[in-house]
């Protein structure tokens, strides 16, 4: 449309900014909006088009960035008081790649503080609301990005996923969200939560947009030694309406642990639809899944406690005043700067790494992680993809689970195993319950994003769930 000059980039950016003015009061998806620089970037794309230059498929597209990815010259807060004034002098590699592709950055979206949470209620600033029902949470931690895309306050968004933080909010907000294989996307400039689990990924209105965005952000980055040096395929070529002969595994453990019957039904209807289009499915058992929640809640805080040691009030961010000495300054800065959830995870992480407990907790969890990966490797010998619900429930009410840390953590029970194993997974809308979207999770072999995109695309082409919009 932009290439054919049916609409200009500036018109598109204006339309999105107007939409933000109209609904942001209700949704509260953004921490920072950069309207002026967005219009400038859009104008530059229009000039390129006018000169007849080649433009990328992302050029001129209004895009939101989760506020834990560094953006040069733009506030990057992680929705934390401790980074309330942080303006990075550099951009994350993903942000740089998007800007180089001509994407128009609209703003920075709200999250659970340091990406720790499943509802975006842990933001130090405000809670984001679910566009489908403003009394419900948008999911978390990329709740701002999910709500922005769902409410048409952005065309595309980037999220980050440590235990489900892209897929679960995508599911709650009725959009597509994908966690690529660990190492596919550079984490340089992503504020680290749990480095061996974090991965950046697309949050979009449909599977085609996910493939386009993935094309732009994947690939080796010399600035991130854990990014893998593998060829990046053109993911849009995987978008074929064809699942004939594909083997789908349905692990029964993903349908236990509090999964509501209406969710299980919607997902199984999705599996049956894929089978009617030529795929085969069989149930399988992965008993190790029962152990993934405690494993994750040892490993993620352990890594977080180490990553968050850098917030000491010396080089950036908040600093407590009136500290007589440096150690008091560190301790007070961290007391005043971090929210309750972050403190809890730092405490868990410090404890499980401390002398005397390391073997019993941290090392044990690392070993269980091996078993989780082995279970997936075994399953993928027989199946091309595995399918499960993305979340055991639809979006819950704001405030409903705040006081129950364990209940809240169960919201991630279907998504966490994927991060432990490092494999890719996508969530696509597959139904509604009580007017709220349901997500279906499609998991794939490491570095085989193409097959899960093909399955997701086929499902989307044969259903209409992704075309439904919230009334705001």
């Amino acid at each position, binding site marked *: 449309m932009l290439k054919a000059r049916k609409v200009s980039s500036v018109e598109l950016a204006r339309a999105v900014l107007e939409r933000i003015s109209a609904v942001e009061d209700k949704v509260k998806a953004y921490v920072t909006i950069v309207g002026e620089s967005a219009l400038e970037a859009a104008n530059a794309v229009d000039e390129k088009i006018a000169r007849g230059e080649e433009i990328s498929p992302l050029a001129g597209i209004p895009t939101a960035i989760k506020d834990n990815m560094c953006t040069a010259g733009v506030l990057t807060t992680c929705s934390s008081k401790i980074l309330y004034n942080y303006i*990075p*002098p*550099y951009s994350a590699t993903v942000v740089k790649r998007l800007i180089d592709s001509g994407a128009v950055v609209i703003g920075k979206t709200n999250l659970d503080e340091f990406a720790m949470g499943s509802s975006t209620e842990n933001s130090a600033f405000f809670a984001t609301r679910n566009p489908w029902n403003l009394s419900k949470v948008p999911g978390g931690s990329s709740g701002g990005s999910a709500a922005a895309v769902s409410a048409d306050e952005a065309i595309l968004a980037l999220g980050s996923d440590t235990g489900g933080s892209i897929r679960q909010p995508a599911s709650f907000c009725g959009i597509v969200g994908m966690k690529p*294989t*660990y*190492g596919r996307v550079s984490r340089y400039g992503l504020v680290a939560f749990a480095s*061996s689990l974090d991965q950046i990924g697309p949050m979009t209105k449909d599977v085609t947009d996910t493939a386009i965005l993935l094309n732009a952000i994947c690939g080796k980055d010399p600035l991130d*030694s*854990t990014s893998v040096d593998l060829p990046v395929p053109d993911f849009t070529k995987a978008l074929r309406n064809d699942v004939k002969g594909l083997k789908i595994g349905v692990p029964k453990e993903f349908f236990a642990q509090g999964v509501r019957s209406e969710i299980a039904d919607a997902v199984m209807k999705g599996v049956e639809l894929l089978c009617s289009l030529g795929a085969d499915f069989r149930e399988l058992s992965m008993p190790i899944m029962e*152990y993934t*929640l*405690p*494993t994750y*809640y*040892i490993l993620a805080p352990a890594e977080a*406690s180490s990553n968050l*040691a850098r917030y*000491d009030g*010396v*080089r*950036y*961010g*908040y*600093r407590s005043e009136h*500290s*007589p*000495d*440096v150690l*008091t*300054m*560190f*301790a007070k800065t*961290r*007391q005043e700067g*971090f929210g309750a959830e972050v403190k*809890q995870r*730092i*405490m*868990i992480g*410090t*404890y*499980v790494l*401390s002398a005397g407990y390391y073997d*019993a*907790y941290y090392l*044990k969890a*690392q*070993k*269980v*992680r*091996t*078993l989780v*990966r082995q279970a997936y490797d075994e399953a993928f010998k027989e199946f091309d993809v595995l399918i499960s619900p993305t979340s055991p429930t639809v979006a819950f009410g704001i405030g409903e689970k705040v006081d129950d*840390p*364990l209940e809240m953590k169960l919201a991630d029970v279907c998504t966490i195993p994927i991060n*432990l*194993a*490092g*494999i890719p997974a996508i969530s696509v809308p597959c139904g509604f319950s009580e007017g709220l979207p349901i997500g279906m999770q499609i998991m794939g072999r*490491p570095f085989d994003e193409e097959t899960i995109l093909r399955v997701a695309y086929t499902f989307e082409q044969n259903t209409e769930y992704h075309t439904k919009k919230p009334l705001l």
Partner: protein
Amino acid sequence: MRLSKAEVEHVAWLARLELSDEEKQRLTGHLNEIMVHFEKLQQLDTNEVAPTSHSIPVQNVYREDVVGQCLSADQALSNAPEARDDYFVVPQVVET
């Protein structure tokens, strides 16, 4: 396995985290509740299992030993709560 308030205070000290009395009390409760769930992992025999610290087998990532671009002193100091000349300023460390 029960964590005492004193242990919580010790862990907070290791984490350089000052906690109010109310926080200590709440965290002691929460941590104990969560630790109970961690015990579940002891049901698994992992004696013969190697630990995984990373899900992809990336090892020995080398690059040419050449100087690249880095932040200037001004950029590095641009977010400092307090800076003087080319230094970050912190409360006095050395006793006079």
